[in-house]
């Protein structure tokens, strides 16, 4: 699409939504006024000019990441590893819950119910202080395990819904060719289910990035923990937390948009 084709639609869009834009402007103004009056009321002095060095800095060694971006890398590592593990836990649990074995169903159900009915923070502490020492898990490992178990339980519900949404004729066709249950899952059911559940699964990724901030409670130097340290070292509380929130938003918001877009496409594809 070129701009000549889009611009009239854009103008029409502006005209149709001018009230929305007015409201939006007013809202932004109100927020700005609130922040500005807060500054005067508390005598807070903005020092935004001091923020960049906490993101990235130029030293004699060249460009060096500041503490916040270093924290972001740890956040990515935790979230990425947890996402992979959560998918494995989730899929395995879903298959257990749909199996013919009573024991497998019981184990899976017990896991999901336990995870869903206790707070994530408690689970993190439990794994770090109770399970971690027994199995020699460090803080990072504990955080990854806790987060992936937690998100895995939710992912299992998504997987299960995806699997049962596949018509039973697909099972029968695969079985009638001689495929085993395992091969049928792998070659016929899961590839189809995955397409349908990709949007909510990507949503799990977004949740993971946000929930990984709880790893700060067991002394992991991820983004939130770094923000904590920088803000108490510098007293630039507002600047630091605005920045940290903006970093999270910059990552999760595009992801969420992607999820929504995928969801729309899936619906029209069906």
């Amino acid at each position, binding site marked *: 699409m070129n701009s000549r084709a889009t611009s009239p639609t854009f103008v029409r869009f502006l005209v149709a939504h001018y009230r929305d834009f007015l409201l939006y402007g007013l809202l932004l103004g109100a927020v700005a006024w609130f922040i500005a009056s807060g500054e005067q009321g508390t005598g807070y002095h903005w020092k935004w000019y001091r923020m960049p060095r906490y993101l990235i800095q130029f030293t004699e060694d060249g460009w060096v990441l500041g503490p916040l971006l270093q924290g972001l890398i740890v956040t990515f590592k935790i979230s990425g590893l947890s996402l992979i593990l959560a998918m494995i836990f989730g899929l395995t649990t879903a298959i257990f819950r749909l199996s013919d074995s009573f024991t497998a169903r019981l184990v899976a159900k017990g896991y999901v119910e336990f995870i869903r009915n206790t707070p994530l923070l408690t689970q993190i502490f439990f794994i770090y202080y109770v399970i971690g020492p027994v199995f020699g898990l460090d803080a990072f490992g504990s955080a990854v395990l806790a987060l992936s178990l937690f998100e895995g339980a939710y992912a299992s519900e998504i997987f299960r819904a995806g699997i049962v949404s596949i018509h039973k*004729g*697909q099972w*029968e*066709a*695969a*079985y009638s060719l001689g495929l085993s249950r395992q091969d049928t899952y792998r070659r*016929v059911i899961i590839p189809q289910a995955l397409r349908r559940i990709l949007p909510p699964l990507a949503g799990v990724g977004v949740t993971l990035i946000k929930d990984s901030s709880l790893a700060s409670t067991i002394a992991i130097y991820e983004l939130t923990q770094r923000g904590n340290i920088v803000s108490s070292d510098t007293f630039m509380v507002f600047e630091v937390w605005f920045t940290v929130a903006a970093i999270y938003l910059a990552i999760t918001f595009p992801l969420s948009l992607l999820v929504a877009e995928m969801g729309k496409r899936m619906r029209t594809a069906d």
Partner: protein
Amino acid sequence: MSAAEKIISIHNASKFFGSLKALYNVSLDIHTGEKVVIIGPSGSGKSTLLRSINRLETIDQGTITVDGKNIDAPGSDINALRMEMGMVFQSFNLFPHKTVLENLTMAPIKLKKIPRGQAEEQAMALLKKVGIEEKSGVYPVQLSGGQKQRVAIARALAMSPKIMLFDEPTSALDPEMIGEVLDVMVTLAKEGMTMAVVTHEMGFAREVADRIVFMDQGEILEIGTPEHFFERPEHPRLKKFLSQIL
């Protein structure tokens, strides 16, 4: 015919859904090369009978042997037995995430360890046979009903089965597409394939069947040649059924 030629032997098979007798004391042998057409009103147990043969349904009483092997015996390899029996469903059940060619090659490559190139060659030959080779690269969603069912037949044939089971293969089709599917089935019959076909297409039954089986309320009420069925039907319920559909 001698016992050695029996490829399928169903002996006193019963299947219950709660108190409903989906199959009741059904016995039927199918011989190599034979074409058996199963007819009967809706809900009479035709699908259940066919699906019991490849154990998509498990029977509650009786025995079913395929190629001399009891399919319910402990330790029987049902997947290996199913490889010898192709099945065609009313609703096609093609794999929508695979192309037409992949629908045909997946099972042979996976289960028979046939090299991909060779499997694709065989698949193309089968697609040609069902008259749809130009669609090998498309996904099932782009096919008409008749084309889908022809692909489904080719998919089952790709495993080189000893017998083909058809469960109302033309019932979900628009009338103008029934012929193209029946033509493929007639060709297959003429080539000597062993076939068990549930259908309401009496023309097909008359032309192809060696024997016709009439079922009602889970029981086989009459078995006979097409001449017998259409000239001298005996059971009153068969007479009534024929008068309704002919």
